[in-house]
């Protein structure tokens, strides 16, 4: 800031307000993507959880996968404003890529099969996005939903290959790097998925703070204006959708690998709706909403379903209603407001 202001001091200053406003604006934009200290918090917690709950790492892995899945949705829903109820399509394609590679082609190597899963789900995202993203809002909602159902039913039709709703038989995932066996407590996969989640977060953070990310926000805010300033809107949306599909497929692949189990249920509408609920619960268009939302959702689901195996969804439904009614920016927004309030109190 000091460096930016020095020239204005030497120049004959007629209006003191204008140059400092300019310097402040410049500084804001230049520093906007800088890492803040609190952004380390999710990772501190991810690492802490490894030591605090060593026997719950199987569950912890599922939380990390949920965060990754929700992050991928945040790029399209939170940033680009693409409403989709078919995001499970890409999760499912990722999971089935891994499952079929091992069950049909005896290829259980986790990293290469995950990479194949990313490529195939991204390709599916590109192909479906090219057609579907000409539409918006309710039409798009229905079309994305239909796309997931179509693939699910195709899988059901050829249940001789997919194993239908009973699951793919005989999945055998090899050791990571040929060395690390997935132990009984799932610690190996917790670390593996944790590292990959960090990579995904890093990549997405680069994207959302890039000019391309700004353009996605522009499309969400006002698509008519984007057309008018010459933005290739369809290309931008398809690009974002393809990236998100690849990441969702990655989450699906890790799900299949960590559980060594995959059924057609991965394509369920439930799965698409669940990831959307997670994201809305946490807060959209912020990246960290996915972290909070997926964790809260899955921890609640885990505890409530133990308390009441039949009615546990009531608790989640109630939380969602309260969030949508009173905290439109999700739990992340609540935390921010609380911190602001706290900060103001402590100052006065």
């Amino acid at each position, binding site marked *: 800031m000091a460096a930016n202001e020095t020239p204005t001091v030497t120049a004959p200053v007629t209006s003191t*307000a*204008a140059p400092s*406003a*300019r310097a*402040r*604006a*410049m500084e*804001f*934009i*230049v*520093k*906007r*993507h800088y890492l803040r200290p609190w952004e380390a918090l999710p990772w501190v917690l991810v690492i802490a959880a490894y030591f605090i709950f060593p026997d719950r790492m199987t569950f912890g892995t599922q939380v990390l996968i949920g965060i990754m899945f929700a992050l991928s949705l945040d790029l399209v829903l939170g940033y680009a404003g693409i409403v989709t109820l078919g995001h499970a399509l890409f999760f499912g394609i990722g999971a089935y890529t891994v499952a079929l590679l091992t069950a049909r082609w005896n290829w259980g190597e986790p990293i290469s099969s995950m990479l194949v899963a990313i490529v195939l789900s991204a390709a599916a995202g590109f192909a479906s996005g090219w057609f579907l993203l000409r539409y918006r809002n309710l039409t798009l909602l229905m079309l994305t939903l239909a796309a997931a159902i179509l693939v699910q039913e195709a899988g059901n039709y050829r249940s001789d290959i997919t194993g239908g709703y009973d699951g793919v038989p005989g999945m055998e995932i090899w050791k990571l790097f040929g060395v690390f066996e997935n132990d009984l407590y799932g610690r190996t996969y917790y670390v593996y998925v944790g590292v990959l989640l960090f990579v995904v977060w890093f990549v997405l953070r*680069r*994207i959302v*703070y*890039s*000019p*391309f*990310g*700004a*353009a996605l*926000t*522009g499309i969400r*805010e*006002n698509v*008519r*204006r*984007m*057309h*008018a*300033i*010459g*933005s*290739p*809107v369809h290309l*931008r949306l398809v*690009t974002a959708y393809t990236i998100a599909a690849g990441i969702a497929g990655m989450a699906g692949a890790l799900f299949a690998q960590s559980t060594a189990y995959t059924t057609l249920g991965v394509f369920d509408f439930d799965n698409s709706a669940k990831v959307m609920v997670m994201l809305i619960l946490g807060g959209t268009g912020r990246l960290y909403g996915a972290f909070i939302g997926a964790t809260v959702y899955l921890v609640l689901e885990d505890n409530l379903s133990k308390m009441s195996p039949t009615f546990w969804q009531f608790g989640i439904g109630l939380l969602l209603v309260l969030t949508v009614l009173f905290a439109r920016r999700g739990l992340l927004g609540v935390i921010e407001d609380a911190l602001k309030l706290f900060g103001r109190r402590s100052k006065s």
Partner: protein
Amino acid sequence: MTAALQVEKLNRSFGALAVTRDVDLVLERGARHALIGPNGAGKTTLVNLITGVLRPNSGRVLLNGDDITTVNQAERARRGLARTFQINQLFRGLSVLENICMAIGERDGENNNLWRPAGAKPSVIEEALDQLESLKLVDDALKLVKELPYGRQRLVEIAIALSQKPRVLLLDEPAAGVPSSESHLILDVVAALDPDIAVLIIEHDMDVVFRFAKEITVLVQGAVFTHGTPQQIMADEQVRAVYLGQEGLSGGAHHG
């Protein structure tokens, strides 16, 4: 010299309703051209046809001599055709500065970059700030657009269009909805536009039209009623008749 913008025999109908009928229009480089006409004359439809929001049923649109009739809206914008909207179309949840950076980024292809942080290229931000300074908006650079009074939002609307560095600029009622105490701010900006830009302005206020325009086209019921210099239009009895026969155009009636 090829015209900056040329519209030839343009037709468009919605069902049985012909909203644009055989419209011809020529904007030379640096033109100051006003498009006037009673409400429902098809002025905004014509802007939408020129910018590619709508496709004509027949006729041609030429930009710097190139036929752009089948070119999509975004490509027309990239070739130097910018517009403002009658009702603000802004990124309301973003800051004023980001609104401008968005237009610059799309203009020079910056927005194709997925990896470099938006703040890491100062030239874009400097240019955006220069643009805001020239419109005296720089103090509001970090405010969200939705926090600004409507008159200043109208200025952002123009600032975005100017950031595209257009060769042809279409202004659809730039001062619409702005309290008269502030409208001079916008009209001063319009009056001070780069003389190289060809400007087509839709405006109801005849004082503004006669002050700003060197040429006027009168549109009535989708067709060009007449066309000429401000003096010719002012002296035209038929134009007066059309305007005096219309309600809701007190500006025109007053002047006539």
